Structure formats: structure tokens, C-alpha cells
């Protein structure tokens, strides 16, 4: 369509002599108009359309905290404390009972409650931010913390057989029913257990799931409890029955943190015994796990400790007996578990006929607190995040500070700090650094108590009007 006579100029004179060519007005418009149109359109810039920005929830002081404390066996005391706060009145309640009992708590003092059933503790107001609790046992020393209801729990190293059986305790602190789905993994992969799907716990009650009854099988297992409705506190009571000359050993299996690729099991107990590391891989891909022994200032792979392969959706058990036992004597304070995929882990030790679980702890900048059962206790610090100081403060049952130690830390280093006798509560406060901490208590047996940061908050989500779907 671009013939010469159609070009925007028109001849005005003779064919040859037309030197002057007048540009017709329509030709000018024909050039200008598309340019103007396209030019005008280029000014349309919807890119500036503001996106609805994601606004995270505001963290505020919690207004209410519920703790679920596992049941005891006859005379296991339940200790409650208001950590680093002003104290207040907590309400304790036993499932299936409507009445609650008030318990007065003072700052950093430990109050003992004599109740062997599962106990639901509620702290409101200022107490909500500082309420902690633990169930302990003197004979065959053991201690386990009361748990905050959360949507997801992992327990690694549970048993469902004759020589090792575990019972999951599910307690519902609310009025409405709660529903949990329990997934079980074995060394051969996940097991489909219909009765563990949609376990309903009516409001204010608790439910026990004896795994040896529900899913009887040998070997070490791992379970995940997903709370799909309502809120539940989940705890596991672990038992190795009397077999032949071996006496019965019982305790609580603490929940593992969420699966991760790097974890530090801090607090190894010396003495004669057997160490079993249980690894679980809830993912689908195989994970290769490397184990390193951690001392106060180094970490290394001891001879004979090989890489462990954990298939997706399965549980792997590694017996470490001599390897670790020898190293503890040499000053090992923990075990580092590094894997190519997220796994959970628990180190179970039977020392002098007592069951001890070492659990992963994470370095944190926040102050960490734990209730300490009576016995010879020392704090183990590990994996410092840089040069700094950790303050270790010990309090007795009345909330009186017994001692305060300052420990100099360098990057990656650790430390062991002995605690004075009568320590009932310990607080580790890192300065300019982060550090992971556990308490190892020895008495009539031994136990390892992890120190957890008391970071507890209520979420005030950003709420705005939206469009219905």
C-alpha cells in the first residue's frame, strides 16, 4: 500500500518541474494523529497501582496462657513459677472437672502443686507472659516441662512394643472439642492407622493413646500430632518395662522441635549406659545425616561414627554406646546432627538404670529459663553466636537468687557452669551474643532439661475489610 503517489506529498507542478512539493494538511494529520494517540496511551501507567501490602501481626503481651502438664506417677511434684515477672494467680484444673483451683505465684519462686493427673494451668493478665511449669520425679530423676498448646508436635523415638511403649496424652484446655491427626512413621515408612485419624478430644478433657495397643509393633517409631481443630497439649509418657533383670524405667519423652537440617543435642550425661539416637525423616527424599561430637570449644566426627542415611518417611535408629560414652569422659557436651534434609532427632540414654533424653536446643539471644529438679545440676552452654557474655543466674524455690555467674564466650564455643545446691530455677541471659543452653541434673538418676526462651506473645493480626471470594 505504499505506492509513490500515495505518499503524503502531492505534486503541485508539472511532473518534472515540480520542485516544490506542498505537504497536504491531511498528510500532516495522518502523521500526527497516530503519534498523538500512541503518545497519549504511553502516559497510561497502571504499574503504580498500589498492591495491598502484607502487614504482619503485631506482637503484644499475651492476655491468656494455657499450659498442659503431663500426669505423674504417684508422687511426682508439679512445679509452677512466674519467671522474671511480678507473679499472680494461676488457675489449675484437672480434665473432666469443672472446678479450678487458684495457685498464687510469686516472682521466680517455685510453687509445688500436688496433683498426679494431667493438669491444665491457666494464667491470665500479666501472668500469661511468664507462667512456666514442669513435672519432675525424684526416683529415677526426670523432669519435663508443661507444654503450650500448639498445632503441631513431633515425637521421635516412641515405642509401641513389649520392650518399649509410649502413651500419648492429649489434653484440651478449651470448651469446644479438638481434633488431632496422628501420623506414625516406622523404619519401613509411614503406617496407616485409621484410629489415629481424627482423634476427637471433647472440651476440657484429656485422651490417652497407648501406642502399644493402637499400633503394636517393634522398633523405634516417630509420630506427628497435627491438631486440626481446637487446641491440644500433647505429651508422651515413655516406659521400658521390666525385662528379666532389668528394672522398669519410665519417664516423659519431650517433643522434638520441627524437622530441621541442623540441630544441637546439648547435655550429655556421663556414666555407664547405652546411647540410642533416633532419627526421623518426615519428608519424601532420603536425608544423609552427619553426626559430630561437640565439646566446649570444638566439634569433630569421632572415629567409627559414619554417615547415616534416613529414607523419606521413615525412622532410623543408631546405637552410639561406646562412641559417645568415651567422648563424654573426654569433655563432650553435645551432639550435632547435620542432615541434607529436615529430620527430627532424639538421643535416648539409659544411664545407671535411668532414662535420659537429650533434646535439640537452638541458640538464642533471649533470656532462657528452666525449672530445675533437685540434684547436682550444671548448665551446659553451646554454640555461642559470637564473642560475648552469658549470665547464668540460679534461684531457689522461694525466688531468692543464689548465684549469678558471668561466662565469657567466643564464637562457636561452649561452657559448663555448675549450679549451687537448692537451685530450683535457672536463667541464662546472653549479652551481645546468642547461645544454646541445657541443664544436666544428676541425683537419683539423671535428666537433661533444655532452657527455652520465654518469648511468649499474643498476636494482634492486621485486620482490614476485604472482598468476599
Amino acid at each position: 500500500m505504499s505506492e509513490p503517489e500515495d505518499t503524503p506529498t502531492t505534486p503541485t507542478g508539472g511532473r518534472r518541474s515540480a520542485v516544490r512539493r506542498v505537504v497536504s494538511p491531511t498528510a500532516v494529520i495522518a502523521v500526527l494523529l497516530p503519534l498523538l494517540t500512541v503518545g497519549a496511551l504511553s502516559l497510561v501507567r497502571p504499574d503504580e497501582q498500589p498492591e495491598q501490602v502484607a502487614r504482619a501481626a503485631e506482637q503484644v503481651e499475651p492476655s491468656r496462657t494455657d499450659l498442659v502438664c503431663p500426669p505423674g506417677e504417684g508422687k511426682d511434684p508439679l512445679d509452677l513459677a512466674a519467671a522474671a515477672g511480678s507473679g499472680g494467680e494461676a488457675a489449675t484444673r484437672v480434665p473432666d472437672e469443672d472446678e479450678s483451683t487458684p495457685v498464687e505465684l510469686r516472682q521466680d519462686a517455685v510453687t509445688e502443686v500436688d496433683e498426679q493427673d494431667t493438669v491444665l494451668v491457666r494464667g491470665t493478665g500479666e501472668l500469661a507472659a511468664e507462667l512456666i511449669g514442669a513435672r519432675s520425679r525424684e526416683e529415677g530423676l526426670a523432669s519435663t516441662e508443661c507444654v503450650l498448646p500448639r498445632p503441631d508436635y513431633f515425637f521421635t523415638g516412641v515405642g509401641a512394643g513389649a520392650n518399649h511403649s509410649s502413651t500419648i496424652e492429649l489434653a484440651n484446655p478449651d470448651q469446644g472439642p479438638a481434633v488431632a491427626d496422628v501420623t506414625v512413621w516406622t523404619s519401613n515408612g509411614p503406617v496407616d492407622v485409621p484410629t489415629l485419624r481424627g482423634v476427637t478430644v471433647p472440651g476440657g478433657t484429656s485422651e490417652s493413646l497407648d501406642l502399644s495397643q493402637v499400633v503394636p509393633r517393634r522398633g523405634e517409631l516417630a509420630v506427628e500430632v497435627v491438631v486440626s481443630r481446637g487446641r491440644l497439649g500433647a505429651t508422651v509418657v515413655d516406659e521400658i518395662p521390666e525385662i528379666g533383670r532389668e528394672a522398669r524405667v519410665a519417664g516423659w519423652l519431650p517433643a522434638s522441635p520441627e524437622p530441621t537440617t541442623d540441630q544441637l543435642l546439648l547435655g550429655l550425661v556421663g556414666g555407664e549406659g547405652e546411647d540410642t539416637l533416633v532419627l526421623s525423616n518426615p519428608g519424601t527424599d532420603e536425608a544423609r545425616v552427619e553426626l559430630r561430637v561437640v565439646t566446649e570449644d570444638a566439634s569433630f566426627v569421632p572415629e567409627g561414627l559414619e554417615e547415616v542415611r534416613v529414607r523419606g518417611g521413615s525412622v532410623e535408629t543408631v546405637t552410639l554406646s561406646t562412641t559417645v560414652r568415651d567422648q563424654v569422659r573426654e569433655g563432650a557436651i553435645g551432639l550435632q546432627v547435620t542432615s541434607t534434609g529436615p529430620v527430627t532427632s532424639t538421643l535416648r540414654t539409659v544411664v545407671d538404670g535411668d532414662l535420659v533424653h537429650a533434646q535439640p536446643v537452638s541458640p538464642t539471644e533471649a533470656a532462657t529459663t528452666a525449672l530445675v529438679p533437685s540434684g547436682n545440676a550444671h548448665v551446659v552452654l553451646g554454640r555461642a553466636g559470637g564473642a560475648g557474655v552469658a549470665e547464668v543466674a540460679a534461684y531457689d524455690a522461694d525466688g531468692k537468687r543464689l548465684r549469678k555467674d558471668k561466662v565469657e564466650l567466643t564464637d562457636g564455643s561452649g561452657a559448663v557452669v555448675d549450679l549451687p545446691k537448692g537451685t530450683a530455677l535457672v536463667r541464662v541471659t546472653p549479652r551481645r551474643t546468642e547461645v544454646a543452653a541445657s541443664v544436666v541434673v544428676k541425683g537419683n538418676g539423671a535428666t537433661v532439661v533444655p532452657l527455652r526462651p520465654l518469648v511468649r506473645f499474643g498476636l494482634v493480626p492486621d485486620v482490614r475489610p476485604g472482598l468476599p471470594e
Partner: protein
Amino acid sequence: MSATVVALLVSHDGARWLPTVVEGLTSQTRPVDRVVAVDTTSRDESPQILTEAFGAVQTAPGGTGYPAAVRIGLEEVDRTGGADWVWLLHDDCTPDPGALEALLAAADARPHADVLGPKLREWPSLRRLLELGVTISGTGRRETGLERGEYDQGQHDDVREVLAVNTAGMLVRRDVLARLGGFDEQMPIFGNDIDFGWRASAAGYTTLVVPEAVVFHAEAAHRGVRRTPLTGRHIHYQERRAALYTLLVNASTRSLPWRVVRLAIGTFVRMLGLMLVRQVGQALDELAALVSLYGSPRLVLRARRERRRRGAGTSGVEPLLAPWWLPYRHGLDVVSDLAAAATNQAADVAERRRIAAGKPVAVVDEEDPWAEEQGFVARFLTNPVAVGGLLFVALALVGAREAFGTVAGGALSPAPAQAADWWRLHLESQHALGQGTSVPAPAYVLPLALLGSLVGTATTVSLLLVLAVPLTFWGAWRFLRVVGRLLDEQGPPAWLLFLGATTWALIPAASGAWGLGRLGVVVAATVLPWLAHAALGFADPEPDRRWRAGWRTGVLLALAAAFAPLAFWFSLVLAALVVGAGFYVSSRGMRDRSVWGPPAVAVATPVVLLLPWWLPALLTGSGAGLALDAGRLPMAAVDFADLVTGHLGDAGAPDTLGLMLLAVAVLALVPAATRIPVLVCWIVAFAASLVAVVLGLFTFEADAVTTKAGLGFLVLVIQAGFVVAAVVAAQGALHRRRAGWGRRALVGVVLVASVVPLVGLGWFVVYGPGDLEDSTDTGIPAYMMQSAELGPEHGILVVEGSADTGLTWSVQREDGVTLGEDEVVGLMAADPTLGRDVGRLVSSPELEAAATLPGHGIEYVVLPSPADGDVAAVLDATNGLEQASAESRTTRAWRVAEPVEPGAVAPETAWWRVVLVVLQGLGIVAVLVLCAPTQRKERR
């Protein structure tokens, strides 16, 4: 012995015709024995003409009706020796020389005949048939049994018995006339012949029509050529009154009540019809005729008694009356005539301009000379364009497959269950949406309600989507054809029309508007070619047609603006540009009111018709709706590239197609011959881009959503402008038929351009459904939706999102958000009290915010999948909320323990809303009446 025949001629101001009448009467092959002339005080020279021809003339007063004049004439006949036969003649009818002979011959052949009538032919054409006997239908219509303007080719030349014959040329036995009491003086001018015939038949006499006898009749009174004091201006009144009177006084007693009711209803129906074609005077005449008779029942009763006294039965009449179905057939004919006239209003604007300019009109030989010999199917199959069109529509329907049945998804909300929901939405001033809002329903709810009432709501949406491409194709074809004929008399070749129309028809699909479920843009796109077609009427040489075009464009623009409000802003800018350019080119021509008036009317019409939408929208602060596309908010972000390549956001066919169209539109500017019309297309695109720039500056922030303006309609207009530019330039270049490389270049460009519709169609067939689905899942359990339908106070609070990224809340009521409610929900102000309470509810179980929910009209709280565990945990711990079940494990739901408060949220309909809607309805009817084609006053 031969019978005596006296001709009785009545005249009133008939000097125009009388010389011919006298000539016809005197040149009879069988001469009349005497002529008695009666003149009702003519103001012209009629009496002189009559006196010259026939001697003494009887003179009656000016207001004398025909029956009275006949009575006076008969007295004169009797006085002058009586007669066997009386031959009635009017001053505007002239008999053929053999008329009387033929009539008398027929009377001899059929001795029982008492009344005989000739074949009436039109005067002055002399060829067209007027009447061969008449009868009357149940609605009072004078029935001749002839087609309008039928030529006399001897097709009705049988002597037959009829109900009545016209008094013009009626040959009647003198004694019969006497026994029947002459003509009824209640009918001075019209209709007395039918009444007479009816009475004659009822009394057992026989009326025959004798086609061999021919009388030419000017029908001066009926056509309004002659005004008498008796008819005045209200001829229609006289005719209707006579018709009603005839039916009422002659009907059998048994059928009388039914007739009374039927005629009253019929009158109102006819009035409505007449009003709709702007014949207000005739409508009032109808009413006046009815009132005049129904208001004086004694008159009717007296006439009925009189007929009974004369021994009238009803036996012989029935077969001679018009069949019962005839009025309905006439009604159908009228409607189809109107429809044809309405659809063809702008079709021949090109021809009319050419005729007005004195240029020759091309005789387009569209018919194949073989056509007559081939069947329809063969003709269709041998026409490549017809086959191509069929194939195109079939493939477009395949592309639109998702829209069959119920459809929703993307920006399209599901249709409500019943059209009543749409009516309610349109009528309410306060909707029970959210916590109650006075944001008005969008304007397109009314057309949806109208269509939905006819075919159902789901079918309405389905039809609009399925027919979008075929209807656009049809409209574009018509528009492009007229545009082509405006340029030159031959018009574009069919294949070029096909190429242009298919490209245009695919714009709504290829732009992505269809797949995104932007129903408003799709409907506006469908209306666009028809709107453009109507707007071509502004170029009509006749002012009346320009005005009709103005109203028609106004209605279509209102429809387009109801679905895509930007259509109005665009038309405003375009009108300003075009009228401005018009004043620049010819300010004198533009000063004519019928030149600038119609476009002004077209632009003003939507303002009036859409009043119930835009006025409350501005008053309630939801004026953003005046710049949004219909459907869910926010709008698709349309940027420079989208506007140039014809897309809505990321949706639609490949960008390359749009770029090719743009390139062709730019190339279209090259040929100088068609540059002006192509520039007009570019002005259209420029107007659209101006609107896009201005509206692109705005960001509309409502509580629930922030959105830019919806530029969908502008995308379509720009693309359509490009298509028209390409077709116009191609047509011009083709007609110059040059050879060489120029020709090859043209072929090349056309080939490249034809890739656009081809690939576009292929894309639509494959990717047609887009975001559309059979149904959408709201994530809310079905039993809650059922409970919500119990009433607006059974609301469902839906909290979406997570604590990490922020939560949004909304309230679902009744059947959820359905088509038409999106804009209301998107633009309404959120209730700050409820917002605060929701914040408290999800923050902490201690705050006891659940207790406030029944007061907000909320029965359930839902966290749709995937529910945030932290938020769910807070709600689980809240007293006053009971867990409720949900199909999906990742959806969480609670029931508010306290019962809902009735009336917590309720819709309202304020008086002003009713007033606005009634005004809107009247406005729509008025505008529709004004856009109907003007009816020439036709002979009945």
C-alpha cells in the same frame, strides 16, 4: 320492461372531482333514468357544476351527514316518480362507462340480489384496487380482504356475496332501502355502509359485489383531503366511533357483553400501540370514540331496539363477517413491519445520501442469475462467504463452550437464582450487603433483570456470553457494509467485509475480556458495532431520520454505558471532537439544530436513563463506579502495551496479533484517497486514548479494595477503530485496481492482516474458557450458605489470610455475592464497628468480642482453606463460638452460640428510589417510542 334507475349523487366541496364524475355518469352505456343531486352547502362551485349537468340540485345544510343527505335525495326521488333501483354516488367517485350496465346485468342474472356494489379502484391511479365488498372484524376493523395497494389484474373478478358494499357506486332496490330505514344517521360520514349491509343481511337481503362494474374512488374524506364540519380533524375518531357503533348495535344479544369488554380492552391495546409509534392524536381519537359510545348506552340500546323492530335476525350475517383470527394476523403484520422498519433504519443511509446529492445509485447485482434455478441450500453452499460465516460462528460457539449452562469465575460472579433478585437489587435504596449499604446497584442490573425475567438468570448470562461473538460479527458486518457504501457506491467486497467483521467480532475474546469474565466489557463490545451503525444515521440527509438516529444511538449508548460506564465518557469526548471538527469545517451547516441536536440527544440520553445509578452513586461517595468495568474488583491493570495491542492485563491472545492490527491501521493512512475516513477512525482511537490517559490518573480507594479505572471498553474501541481503518483503506485501494508492485504490496498486507482473525479464532477455540468455570467454590460450607439464605441477618463472617500477612474480613449474606452486587460490595464503606470487633475477635479470646456478633447479624465465622492455625486457635479458645464442621479439613468454621438478632441488617426501599426507578422506566419507554421509525400515515 327495463327497471328505472335513479342516480343519487351527494356532494360537498367536490368541485375538484365533479366534472369527471359528471362525465362518467353521463357516459354510461346504460344511461341512468334520472339524476338526483344533493349538495350539502359546498363552499366551492359544486352546486353550479351539478346544476349545469343535471338541472335542479337539492341543497342541505352544511352539517348534513351522508345518511341524511341520502334521505333528502330519496324524498326527491319519490317526489319525482320513484324508481326501482337507486344508484348511490359520491362527488369523488366516477363510474366506468359500463358500470351501471354490469350492475344491472348482475341483478338480472341473480334476481334475489338486493344490494349490488361495483369494484372500487383508486382514483387517480385507476389501477389499484380499493374494495370489492367489505366486512368488519371483531375489533371493528374495516376488512376488504385485499393486500395494500394491490393492482387489479382481474384476480378477484367473481361475483360473490358480501356483507356490505361501499356507498360509492352502490346499486340498491328502492323498496329495500325504505324497508331498512335508510342509512343510520349516527354515522354521518364513515362506516354507515357496513352497518347498512349488516342490517340488510340480517333482514335476509343479499348483497353482491359485481367486479365487472368498476367505479373509481378518491376516498377524499378518509384520506383527509376533504374536511367537512362533520369530520373536522378527527377522521380517526369518526371511523372508530362508527366501527364500534356498528358492532355494538348489530351484535346478537348473546354476544353483546363479550363485545363490550373486548372492544374496551382492544381500544386500550390499540392506544398503547399507537402511542408506541408516536400517533398520540389517533390514540386519543380511539379513546374518545370509546368514551363517546360507552358514555351513552341509551343511544346504543335505542339503535338495537330499532333494529329488532325492523325484524333483524342474525342468521345470515355470521359467514359474511371476517374470520376471528384476522385481527391477530394484522397485529402480527404490524409488529413485523415495525421491526423491519426499525432494523433497516440506518441500513440505507448511504443510498439516501447519494439520492439526496443527486448521484446515481448503484444497482448492486447481489443475485446470481442462476439463483432462481437453485435451491437455498445449493446457493448457500456455493457462496464461500456464507459458508465461512457459518464456520466462523460455529467455531466461535466452540470457543464459548464454557458459557453454556451456568457460568462464573474470573471477574464474573454467579447469577442469582431468580430475576426477582435483580429487580430487588435495582429497587432497593439500602442493600443487605455487608452491614447494609446505600451504594446503588450498577446500571446493568436493569437490562439483566429484564432479560432474566424472560429467559431466567443463568440463561441470561449464558446468552450474553455465547452470543457475544456472533452478534458482534453480525453488527460489524452491517456497520462495515454501510461505511463501505458511504465511501463508494459499490461498497466493500464480501470477502473484505468478512475479514473485517471476523476480526472485529473476535476483539472481545482476543482482548481477554471474555475469558476474564468481564461481562460488562463483553456486552458493550457486542453493542458497539450496532451503536456505531446507529450513529451513522447522523449523516442521513433527512432531519427526521437524523433525530431518530439520535434517539437510537442514545438508547444503545445508554445500554453500553450501563455495562461499561467508560462508553459514556468516551462518547462525550468523541462527540466534542467530532462536533468541534464539524464547526471548524462548516460552521453554518452545523448551526442547524437537526445537525448538532441528534448527537447531543444521544449523549444526553444515558444521563437521563441511567439516573437511578449515577446520581445515588455520586451522593454516596461511590462515584468510582462511573469509571469501572462491570464485575469483580479490582480491575485488570491495563498499561500502554495492553492498550496498543488490545489486551486486558495479561489475558487474551498473543500480543503479536494486536501489533499486526496496529501496523495495518498505520499503513491504512498511506493511501491518500481514503485518508480522510481512515483519519476519522484514528480520531475515534484518539478520543479513546484521551479518556484512558485521564482516567488512568485516578486510583480509587474503597475500604475493601483499591483499583484503577476499568479501561476494557477503551481497549475494544481502539481495536475496532483500527479494524474499520484497515477495511476502509483496503476497500479504497482495491477499487483503484492498479497493477504492478503496488498491487502485490496490497495483496501482501491483506494476507498479513487476515492472519489476525485466523490466529485469533484458533486461540479462542483452544483457550476460550479462560477463567470461566461451571461454578465457583467460595470455600464456605454448603449448610452455612443454606442457613444464610434464611435472611440477611444470618450472615457469615469470612476471615481470610494469615496473621503473618494480615487478615481481611468480609460478610456474606443470603446467596453470597451474585452478579450485579460486585460493585456494591467493592465500593461500599466497611462498618468500622464490625472491623474493630473482628480485630478483637481474632486477637484474643479474653476480649469476648463474640458476644457482639449477633448484633452485627453474623451467625457463622469461617476461616476458608488454608485457615491460619494461630487465628483458629484464638477462635477455638473463645467463649461464645462453637466449632462447626466444614467439608475441607483445612477450612475452619464456628457458629456463634447466641441466636442472631432479627432485623440486624435489613434492606430498604426509599420513596425517592421508587421515584427514580419509575422515572427511568418512563424515560426508557419514551426514548424507545422516539427511536421507533416514523410511520407514514397509511391507508387501511
